[in-house]
């Protein structure tokens, strides 16, 4: 098994059809939108999906990947868990943070890979809290159009009723192509405890991030491409931004208008030759 982590530049090409890829709590869960009309997906939202897949130890994704990769589930616990219960953490984690936090680092996959703020409490300032993998904001290429529908709701939404209408309960983007960059910075690995196996798991989880976490609000959010460009050395063999620019789809007509389908874009199928010679570029989705 490969034990060295190489620097990598990634780009997720996310297609959204009649779905809400990431609601904005400040605007009653409307899809997130910027002043220029473009849609947003927060990195926190995407990382949550990876965490949920890794945490669901009875789920098919973990079952299959853990068998395939021969993973010990005790080493792939999720620190930022939805299932936190009162008293679960503070005492236990404090103990795990003793002695250079070795038990802590060995236990939490998301702590190793995305970083964590708990290490601040370890009082060992030599122990870094920054993660190895850095996801950036997902932004739609063109402005998005938001629709709002009223839903019927079986759970009572009005006092004294057992069912009713949920006005504007379903808010969605008609169509959008979002690009989300991510970076693997191996310089942080020896401090957060991240290993090549952790990165391999990330690469295998990414294609399932949306397909296995679908919901009423997200019936069709999926990855068209998940580009992963591995550099030849830990410092980087070319500009990360040149790779991202080269792989980003371009809208065929006016980029200031919303798209209706994937056919509205010219999407690169590979890197241009000058960049392709500097990295090993694969599509994790494998289309």
């Amino acid at each position, binding site marked *: 098994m490969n034990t060295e982590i190489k620097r990598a530049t990634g780009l997720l090409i996310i297609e959204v059809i009649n779905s809400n890829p990431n609601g904005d*709590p400040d605007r009653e869960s409307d899809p997130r939108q910027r002043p220029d009309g473009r849609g947003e997906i927060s990195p926190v939202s995407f990382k949550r999906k990876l965490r949920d897949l890794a945490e669901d130890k009875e789920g098919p994704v973990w079952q299959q990947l853990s068998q395939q990769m021969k993973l010990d589930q005790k080493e792939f616990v999720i620190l930022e868990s939805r299932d936190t219960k009162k008293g679960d953490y503070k005492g236990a984690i404090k103990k795990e943070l003793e002695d250079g936090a070795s038990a802590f680092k060995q236990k939490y996959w998301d702590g190793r890979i995305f970083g964590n703020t708990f290490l601040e409490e370890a009082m060992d300032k030599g122990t870094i809290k920054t993660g190895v993998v850095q996801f950036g904001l997902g932004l739609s290429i063109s402005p998005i159009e938001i629709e709002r529908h009223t839903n019927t709701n079986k759970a009572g939404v009005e006092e004294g009723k057992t069912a009713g209408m949920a006005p504007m309960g379903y808010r969605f983007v008609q169509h959008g192509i979002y690009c989300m960059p991510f970076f693997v910075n191996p*310089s942080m690995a020896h401090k957060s405890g991240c290993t090549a196996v952790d990165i391999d798991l990330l690469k295998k989880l990414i294609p399932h991030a949306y397909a296995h976490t679908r919901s009423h609000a997200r019936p069709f959010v999926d990855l068209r491409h998940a580009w992963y460009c591995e550099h030849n050395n830990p410092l980087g063999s070319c500009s990360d931004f040149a790779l991202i620019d080269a792989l980003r789809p371009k809208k065929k007509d006016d980029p200031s208008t919303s798209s209706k389908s994937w056919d509205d874009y010219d999407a690169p199928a590979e890197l241009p030759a000058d960049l392709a010679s500097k990295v090993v570029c694969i599509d994790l989705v494998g289309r």
Partner: protein
Amino acid sequence: MTKKYEIQLEISGPTAIWTRPDSGDCPVSYPAPTYSAVKGIFEAILFIQAVEIVPCKVEICAPIVYHTYNTNYGGPLRKSDQINKGASYQLLSSVLVNPCYRLYAVAQSNVKTNGRVSEKTLAWLSRTTSAPHAYQEMFNRRLKRGQNHYIPCLGWKEFTPDYVGAFRPETRVYTDFNMTLSSMLRQVFPDGLRSEARYVFDQDVDIRGGELKYHPEVDHAQ
């Protein structure tokens, strides 16, 4: 007169937050990066213990547009009652969208090593006649090749840039922007390597014609 080893770069991205500490738990961004943020951006490209990066000025190269940005936190650092209710902690912030900056700094010998430079650095220093000169050369080489220690960020780690590199010919300074900040955080760790936190602020910071010049280093009151 001591020779100055100047370094510069341009950085832009979809979103930035240069947190005003007075905005508490609903962070609001300054219009321009703090002194320590600029230092961190340069050091993400190249960090050498024997060299100190002294930010000089920043040019604002895009209109200042604020936008709300919210994130949910569902992890163990929530308060007990939030955990009991199964509620997420929502962090509401005011960020900048589509920012672009040109950053200027000087590399100089680090006099704040506090005797804590590594053996590797000491060995490197013994082979180098001018550490700042070497830094400048290595920095420019790395910037040109697109290499870095880690991807610099525009405030928070998740606000990744869409460009870091040499000045682009099409970039223009946003000269219409003028503002005076009564107080701006300068540094949290001004005392050098592995020092304790000591919050230092600059007062009456002027941004004129889109340009913010950082105050020369003085020992401000906390």
